[in-house]
């Protein structure tokens, strides 16, 4: 009998009860990857030797009754911008095709120390920005709900692998929505933690003042378990918040009674008009949380287009600074999409960048003011159900505003939860947003919603 697909919480119960072998679980994850990857392209590299070594160590702890915790023996994949010692970390790019790091990224090491079993490295948009691309050394990941569809990006392989039940979790990074986008289109839970809560050391950068790392998983509860293991101060990351890691699990089941929740309707109803299913999903999330005891109100912020313009100008310039040395020498080694986006970034002047940072400060102040009357905010996570992968515009992020980048600008925690299914049986998602360093409250609300609904019972047919 197969153990996958399953949640981390369920797998842990079976491992702790010694009814599931971590070695057999790792073998099953590897076999699922071998079977599904030719269709999904979720992994760009499997690491069976590492997986089986780590699984044997977990099994030894299991037999001794000395498990490291709820993640011990759980298979995982890492987005290929997370450095892994001795295993190529390429950014899904020809530019770094042969890069073999000497050390693990801090958060990769944290999950390994918690006992997680690395099955392989996951596809990403090129350097977490350029995609979906068909001219890179590896093809783009495809959506398990419909393999002709886009996963959203940039944590493409993580979205595909978790939705397909190959692994119950994976790492993501989020600079403008790269965790919350794939979580939405692939029907998962994914949290962009507060900026500074999780280390970025050993993670290939996209834009330093916006970059965050976080987990994607099937449920909010699993995200809480994963985030607990990766949160905390890292002196080697200058952006890391020097404060104790919060307890993300103690109050997870406390519900939302009495919480004040603001809905940013104009973001998804007028600034960007989302599809009916996406809009219904936000309304459904709000109604469920209200039925659970939350108090709802509407919130108005500056127009979404202002957040988008500010965020993308900052992102483009900071990304250009990262890639500047290679533009002169390796320009044709980038895929077409990233190559052209970086070329466009050269048009943004130094004064433009500073003006964007001044606008950012104003936007942060507007958000802080709005949140004086709210504990949490809600809005959509995506414009529509997953589009065909070959119909995604190269410049989509410039042509229409995105719903996720506002919370990269402010640094506050934001999570996508699956709120149902729309056209073609494709999943839709909405965001729950909290105050900075109140990640636990975001998780608590997401968990309350999942407990009160049955959306987590439906898996892609391909995952059976």
């Amino acid at each position, binding site marked *: 009998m197969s153990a996958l697909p399953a949640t981390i919480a369920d797998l842990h119960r079976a491992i702790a009860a010694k009814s599931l072998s971590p070695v057999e679980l790792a073998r099953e994850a590897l076999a699922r990857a071998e079977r599904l990857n030719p269709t999904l392209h979720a992994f760009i590299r499997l690491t069976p030797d590492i997986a089986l070594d780590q699984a044997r160590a977990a099994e030894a702890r299991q037999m001794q009754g000395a498990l490291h915790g709820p993640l011990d023996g759980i298979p995982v994949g890492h987005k290929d911008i997370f450095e892994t010692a001795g295993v190529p970390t390429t950014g899904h790019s020809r530019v770094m095709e042969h890069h073999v790091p000497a050390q693990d990224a801090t958060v990769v090491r944290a999950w390994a120390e918690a006992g997680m079993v690395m099955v392989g490295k996951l596809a990403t948009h090129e350097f977490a920005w350029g995609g979906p691309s068909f001219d890179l050394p590896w093809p783009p990941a495809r959506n398990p709900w419909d393999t002709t569809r886009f996963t959203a990006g940039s944590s493409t392989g993580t979205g595909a692998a978790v939705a397909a039940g190959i692994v119950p979790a994976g790492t993501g990074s989020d600079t403008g929505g790269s965790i919350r986008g794939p979580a939405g289109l692939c029907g998962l839970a994914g949290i962009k933690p507060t900026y500074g809560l999780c280390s970025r050391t050993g993670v290939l950068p996209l834009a330093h003042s916006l970059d965050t790392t976080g987990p994607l998983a099937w449920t909010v509860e699993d995200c809480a378990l994963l985030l607990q293991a990766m949160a905390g101060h890292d002196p080697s990351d200058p952006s890391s918040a020097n404060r104790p890691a919060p307890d993300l699990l103690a109050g997870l089941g406390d519900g939302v009674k009495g919480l004040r929740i603001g809905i940013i309707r104009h973001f998804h109803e007028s600034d960007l008009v989302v599809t009916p299913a996406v809009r219904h999903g936000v309304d459904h999330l709000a109604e469920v949380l209200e039925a659970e005891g939350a108090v709802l109100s509407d919130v108005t912020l500056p127009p979404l287009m202002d957040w988008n313009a500010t965020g993308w100008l900052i992102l483009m310039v900071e990304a250009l600074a990262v890639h500047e040395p290679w533009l002169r020498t390796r320009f044709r080694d980038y895929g077409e999409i990233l190559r052209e986006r970086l070329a466009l970034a050269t048009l943004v002047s130094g004064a433009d960048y500073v*003006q964007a940072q001044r606008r950012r400060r104003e936007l942060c102040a507007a958000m*802080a003011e709005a949140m004086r009357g709210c504990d949490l905010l809600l809005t959509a996570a995506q414009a529509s159900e997953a589009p065909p992968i070959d119909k995604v515009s190269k410049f989509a992020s410039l042509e229409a505003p995105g719903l996720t980048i506002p919370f990269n600008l402010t*640094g506050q925690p934001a999570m996508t939860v699956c709120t149902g299914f729309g056209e073609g049986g494709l999943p839709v998602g909405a965001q729950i947003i909290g105050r*900075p360093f109140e990640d636990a409250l975001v998780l608590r609300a997401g968990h309350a919603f999942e407990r009160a609904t049955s959306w987590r019972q439906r898996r892609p047919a391909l995952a059976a």
Partner: protein
Amino acid sequence: MAEPYPAAVFDAAMARAGITLTEAERATLIDVSRHIAASTGRIRTERAVGVEPATLFVPGQRA
């Protein structure tokens, strides 16, 4: 929608970055540059001369 960047400005930016484009790429990117122009216009609100940027970015800090 804003106008694209003038070709001379666009070409100067590419030259400064050391980027050589094909004619097709150049034409595409000049056209798309209207989105950059629109964005740089949108971030310039009326503000007091002393308004600080978020150069030291701390989540939750009040302006």
